[in-house]
């Protein structure tokens, strides 16, 4: 073995995890003694390729951290001994009828007693055996805080042979627990005791004890289970096809002899869940024996199981009823050991990997796994019988018990899906494996693209049981209707959604915990089920589901399933088929709603749930990207008339709000640019040909929050500026486009001359474009051109310019190429941004939700007043990172989950903004990054706690931490319509179409372009007071500007000629000095802002 010896020392000197076998330690010592020269050892290890990799070292640390520490284990052992003593010496009680429970004092029976009475008597006797079981003695327990499982064996004498019927056994078991609880509470050994269900199974309550430990440390949690002494029941009594709960008893009908119906027992509905729940007690020993045998002398297997449990827990797979529990995982590893898929000599990583690989390729739904070689023989049920009664089957060593009790197909599919993702993780970037597999929690909200909640009432549940014909199942679940209907709901959802989804998953509910003196939580009046959908990125957007041909026999089925939604349609291939159409507009926001429409339809039709009871979570968030409908209507005339496609024209004209989330709009703008590019490349007689035309505006890379609306004269006319009190023209951005010129050797080596030549070229270009009938405005550095209502700002890309700017002559006369700020700025515009555009275009093609996600992220950042301080490209790269490196998740398909993961990314401690910077952009200030982290974390909590209502809250920044808050007049906001609080029909500013006054000179060429007074004011204030304070503003129609003074600004300074600005005279220690003049700054804001500033609130305590 090649673990270097210093490593070995470390292991030995530090606390070893408990129960690490003694011989293991011996072995280690032996190894050490044989070790010679450490150098030699190391060399040998190296040559054998045997040094522990970083990953293995990380695993070791992780296990050390998550396992119980030795001191704690000693304390646990003491406590267990004490409890054992107490339990084994308990005195027997008197005999009581089962339903007579007065003797329990105020302790309530931890099972639902419905119907209340069942026959039989119960008498308490001390347990025959008390022992520590489960993961603690196996050393596969991973959470130090998690409970240790203590088992007590209920003696034979407590039971009669007929106790298997009609909940008699489960009630007696509960009585036993209650009695123990009563006696323990008298003994006053524990701090607190509660009941809970073991793995959420209401048939199997357990007692949760919290026992204080001597000295310091948190109290120990001990789960007290009750199991059966051997030989009380024959396992065959609980054959899954047998009935052990008589319907007439369950329905409360009185019969003289409840067991008289034995002859017709075969015709009674089977009770597999009830039977299996009891079998878990009956077969406990056999399975525990198997497991301890398999894990004997195999520390690496134990480690692997611990790792697998951490992996399960991070994915919330080991929670609630029907989960993939740690015990199940241990049994699976045991199974793999016995079949040779993993072997003991493998290290923990190899076992971990092989187990996951096996899981990812397994198909238990068709081929159940069994630990019992004689399955189906003797009285044992056959695999086919198992499959009939259960979704997922894993037969235990006895051959009677299905270990996957209550597991739905969806949970199993999720486990397989996660396993294959994990295998993908292991094949990817090695540096990230460890975090992705073990450290990142994959919460429900972050995992699934869409989540929706169904509120359930007892009435609706009963109706569902009726609709799905599940009364037999409800008998088996002793009236737990939610569990009863869940598989059926999943089934119809699966059928309805088909290949649109990859996974459908109900959110696991952790087992309830309740005090001893309360009744167990029953079917609460208003419970709810939350489902998550992991959708397929392209299938989920399909607008039409084509069914079978009209005359095919399956057509009737199809019609039955979809109801009135199904209609006959003729398809392009000539076939006439049944089909379901979900939307008529191809808008992406429409397409994204298809899945939720299907869910609503299917649940209403088949489960009788009304649409008001189904809440789709978080779809309202996209509304922030909408613009007021009125503006869209005004502008849609232009965009549709300019559109050559008559079909599109009709569509946009009819819908009115065709803008939607604006994604299609971006495609439209790109199309217009393409047309313009064609025209530009074809221009004749230019000094140099235009080789390429690339848009570098955010709109062209799908990340402009509000893509430009086509200009309408009455909303954007220049004349609006000339009249004093007219509202401002609607904001029309100028979208920068780089025209790359063909190469030429004739450019001069002087930067000013290059620029002069460019200006000449632009003048010429402007002339040529106006000859084409386009409106242009020529400036020294660019030409603005209006095409189809959009303003494009054409700039020339001359690579020579960068070269010349980089030229630096050293003192020795050597000509060097060096990056200068100026050269970098030009390079960014003509090289980096076009590259970024191409990259993001590719991302958008692969992930249609990228556009909405990045825009949501930017909108949120801006609303939180941070966008001006964090470069756009950093945000874009961060979002790209989410899509390209989604592990441990899959790439987000809905904008909401993309946005949530963005928030999670930036709020996390591991977010390194440096990795998203380039050589041009300056990194954001630390104060900004801290603020970002804080608001992102807060936003996440808001979204997770109340995702439905009040979603706008996350777009309202808290203002109390700023020193000065400037309120702007909404009249002078040219982007006011993009504001967060804007109502749908807000632009009442333009009651009448604007008419030019008679004397107006017809001189205007372009709409008012790129004119945003609030932004100019912000720039002005930054340039004046930027040394003293940071200024914050929501670019998109924010009516508030806030100011944060830099630390130390208000400290008095000595009088110096260089530091006069912004200061007022003061006296410090009776000497004249200067101090920051806040009043003058506020005054300057008021003066410079003029009528744009309504009010300035000074909130700082540092009043000057």
């Amino acid at each position, binding site marked *: 073995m090649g673990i270097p010896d210093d490593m070995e020392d470390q292991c030995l000197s530090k606390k070893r995890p408990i129960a690490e076998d003694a011989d293991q330690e011996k072995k280690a010592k032996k190894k050490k003694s044989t070790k010679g020269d450490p150098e030699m050892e*190391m*060399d040998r290890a*190296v040559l054998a390729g045997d040094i522990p*990799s*970083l990953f293995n*070292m*990380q695993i070791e*640390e*992780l296990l050390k*951290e*998550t396992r119980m520490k030795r001191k704690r284990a000693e304390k646990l052992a003491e406590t267990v001994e004490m409890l054992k003593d107490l339990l084994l010496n308990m005195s027997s009680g008197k005999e009581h009828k089962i339903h007579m429970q007065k003797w329990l004092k105020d302790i309530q029976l931890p099972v639902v007693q419905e119907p209340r009475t069942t026959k039989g008597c119960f008498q308490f006797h001390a347990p025959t055996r008390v022992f520590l079981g489960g993961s603690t003695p196996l050393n596969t327990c991973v*959470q130090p805080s998690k409970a240790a499982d203590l088992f007590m064996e209920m003696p034979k004498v407590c039971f009669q042979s007929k106790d298997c019927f009609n909940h008699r056994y489960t009630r007696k078991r509960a009585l036993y627990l209650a009695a123990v609880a009563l006696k323990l509470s008298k003994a006053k050994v524990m701090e607190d005791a509660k009941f809970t269900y073991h793995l959420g199974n209401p048939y199997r309550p357990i007692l949760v004890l919290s026992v204080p430990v001597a000295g310091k440390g948190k109290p120990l949690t001990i789960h007290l289970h009750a199991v059966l002494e051997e030989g009380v029941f024959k396992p065959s009594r609980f054959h899954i096809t047998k009935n052990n709960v008589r319907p007439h008893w369950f329905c409360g009908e009185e019969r003289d002899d409840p067991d008289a119906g034995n002859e017709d027992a075969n015709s009674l509905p089977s009770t597999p869940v009830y039977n299996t729940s009891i079998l878990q007690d009956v077969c406990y020993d056999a399975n525990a024996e198997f497991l301890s045998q398999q894990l004997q002398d195999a520390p690496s297997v134990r480690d692997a199981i611990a790792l697998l449990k*951490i992996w399960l*827990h991070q994915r919330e797979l080991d929670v609630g009823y029907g989960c993939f529990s740690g015990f199940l995982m241990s049994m699976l590893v045991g199974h793999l050991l016995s079949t040779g898929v993993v072997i003991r000599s493998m290290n923990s990583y190899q076992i971990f990997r092989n187990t996951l690989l096996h899981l990812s390729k397994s198909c238990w739904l068709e081929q159940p796994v069994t630990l019992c070689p004689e399955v189906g023989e003797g009285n044992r049920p056959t695999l086919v019988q198992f499959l009939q009664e259960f979704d997922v089957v894993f037969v235990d060593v006895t051959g009677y018990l299905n270990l996957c009790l209550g597991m739905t197909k969806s949970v199993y599919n999720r486990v397989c899906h996660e396993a294959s993702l994990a295998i993908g993780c292991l094949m990817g970037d090695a540096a990230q494996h460890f*975090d992705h597999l073990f*450290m990142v*929690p994959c919460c429900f909200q972050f995992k699934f693209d869409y989540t929706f909640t169904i509120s359930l009432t007892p009435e609706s549940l009963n109706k569902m049981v009726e609709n799905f014909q599940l009364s037999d199942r409800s008998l088996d679940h002793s009236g737990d209707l939610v569990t009863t209907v869940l598989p059926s709901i999943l089934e119809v959802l699966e059928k309805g959604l088909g290949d649109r989804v990859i996974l459908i998953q109900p959110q696991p509910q952790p087992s309830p915990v309740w005090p001893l003196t309360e009744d167990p939580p029953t079917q609460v009046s208003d419970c709810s089920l939350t489902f998550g959908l992991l959708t397929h990125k392209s299938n989920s957007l399909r607008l039409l589901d084509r069914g079978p041909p009209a005359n095919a026999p399956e057509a009737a089925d199809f019609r039955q399933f979809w109801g009135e939604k199904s209609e006959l349609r003729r398809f392009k291939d000539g076939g006439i088929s049944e089909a379901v159409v979900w939307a008529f507009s191809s808008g992406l926001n429409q397409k994204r709603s298809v899945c939720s429409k299907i869910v609503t339809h299917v649940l209403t039709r088949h489960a009788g749930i009304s649409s008001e009871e189904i809440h789709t979570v978080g779809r309202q968030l996209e509304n922030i990207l909408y613009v007021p409908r009125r503006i869209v209507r005004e502008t849609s005339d232009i965009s549709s008339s300019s559109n050559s496609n008559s079909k599109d024209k009709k569509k946009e004209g009819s819908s009115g709000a065709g803008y939607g989330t604006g994604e299609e709009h971006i495609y439209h703008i790109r199309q217009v640019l393409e047309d313009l590019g064609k025209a530009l490349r074809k221009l004749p007689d230019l000094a140099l040909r235009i080789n390429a035309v690339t848009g570098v505006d955010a709109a062209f890379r799908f990340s402009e929050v509000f893509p430009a609306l086509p200009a309408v004269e009455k909303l954007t006319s*220049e004349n609006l*500026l*000339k009249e004093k009190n007219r509202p*401002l023209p609607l904001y029309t951005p100028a979208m920068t486009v780089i025209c790359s010129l063909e190469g030429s050797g004739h450019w*001069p080596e002087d930067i*000013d*001359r290059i620029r*002069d*030549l460019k200006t*000449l070229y632009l*003048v010429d270009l402007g002339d040529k474009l106006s000859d084409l009938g386009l409106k242009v*405005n*020529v400036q020294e*550095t660019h030409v603005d051109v209006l095409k189809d209502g959009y303003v494009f700002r054409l700039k020339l890309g001359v690579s020579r310019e960068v070269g010349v700017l980089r030229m630096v002559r050293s003192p020795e006369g*050597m*000509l*060097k*190429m060096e990056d200068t700020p100026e050269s970098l700025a030009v390079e960014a515009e003509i090289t980096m941004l076009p590259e970024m555009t191409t990259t993001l275009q590719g991302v958008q093609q692969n992930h249609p939700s990228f556009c909405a996600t990045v825009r949501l992220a930017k909108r949120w950042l801006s609303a939180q007043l941070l966008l001006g301080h964090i470069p756009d490209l950093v945000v874009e790269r961060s979002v790209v990172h989410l899509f390209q490196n989604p592990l441990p998740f899959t790439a987000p398909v809905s904008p909401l989950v993309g946005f949530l993961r963005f928030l999670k990314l930036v709020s996390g401690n591991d977010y390194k903004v440096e990795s998203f910077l380039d050589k041009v952009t300056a990194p954001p200030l630390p104060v900004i990054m801290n603020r970002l982290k804080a608001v992102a974390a807060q936003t996440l909590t808001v979204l997770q706690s109340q995702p439905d209502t009040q979603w706008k809250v996350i777009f309202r920044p808290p203002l109390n931490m700023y020193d000065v808050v400037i309120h702007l007049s909404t009249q*002078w906001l040219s982007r006011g319509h993009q504001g967060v609080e804007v109502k749908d029909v807000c632009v009442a500013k333009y009651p009448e179409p604007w008419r030019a006054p008679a004397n107006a000179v017809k001189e205007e060429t*372009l709409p008012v372009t790129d*004119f945003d007074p609030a932004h*100019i*004011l912000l*720039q002005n204030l930054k*340039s*004046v007071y930027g040394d003293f304070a940071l200024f914050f503003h929501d670019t998109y129609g924010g009516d508030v500007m806030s100011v944060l003074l830099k630390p130390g600004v208000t400290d008095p300074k000595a*009088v110096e*000629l*260089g530091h006069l*600005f912004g*200061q007022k*005279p003061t006296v410090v220690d009776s000497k*004249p000095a200067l101090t920051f*003049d806040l009043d*003058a700054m*506020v*005054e*300057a804001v008021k*003066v*410079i*802002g*003029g*009528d744009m500033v309504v009010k300035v609130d000074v909130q700082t305590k540092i009043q000057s």
Partner: protein
Amino acid sequence: MAESEHMVIKGLTVVPVKFDEARTTVHYVYLKQHDVRQKGGDDVKPKDRTVFVGNVPPWATEESFKHAFGCCGRVENVYFHAKPCKGKPAEDNSKRRELFPKMDHRVAYLVFKNQQSVNKALHLSYTKSLTLSTKKSPIVHGCARYKQMYLESRQTDVAELKKQVTERIMEHDLKEQEIEEVLKNAEPDDEGWTVVTRVGKNKGAPRTEAEDRRVKQKEGRKRKRKEMTNFYTFQTREQKKQKIEELREKFEMDRSKVEIMKAQRKFKPF
């Protein structure tokens, strides 16, 4: 104006100014006689007639200063600067300015017609403030100013622009030609040295970094061809040793990484 009313700290006269009559909040400016240490003095801002003003309000204009300080005597010129300096403000000849110029002036120089005015200015009252924006010459701010600036910026005279630029280019070309001419006809100087330039009969190798690198690379390649590896036993031995050393280093690095992560509590999954 009483003598006692004015305030001087460290040689700077403090004078409050305010935007207009309606406002009460004042902004303090600091006055001092202009003084140039460098030789030659300052032609534009004569020492005896010029007052330096510090902490100029961002909203002030040169025009408004001329009016406000007119109370001390006629002001000939006002210059706004970002930093104290001599001479005129740099001519913005490129006109390649941003649409909305930065408000980056911090200091001003007032050039009075008469010398006495300087003294008067340095004795301005501390209690009575000067008003900059008056009815007669108001300073426009707020949205109105931005609108005005926008409209101005959009009215570029293309023909004029073209003419200016063409002229500049011509001028430059002429200059270039002259220099070229001089270089071409370079004659040996008195001691017999000739300057080698990029033009002329004896062009030298270009003195650029790229050229330098190219030469070095060429030499490196030559050297490499002569060298032999894997020839002697000790070379292979060394190689092996080096490989082991590398692996060991990697291991040590990994271990230190793990230690760091441990310190950052990177191993607590729950």
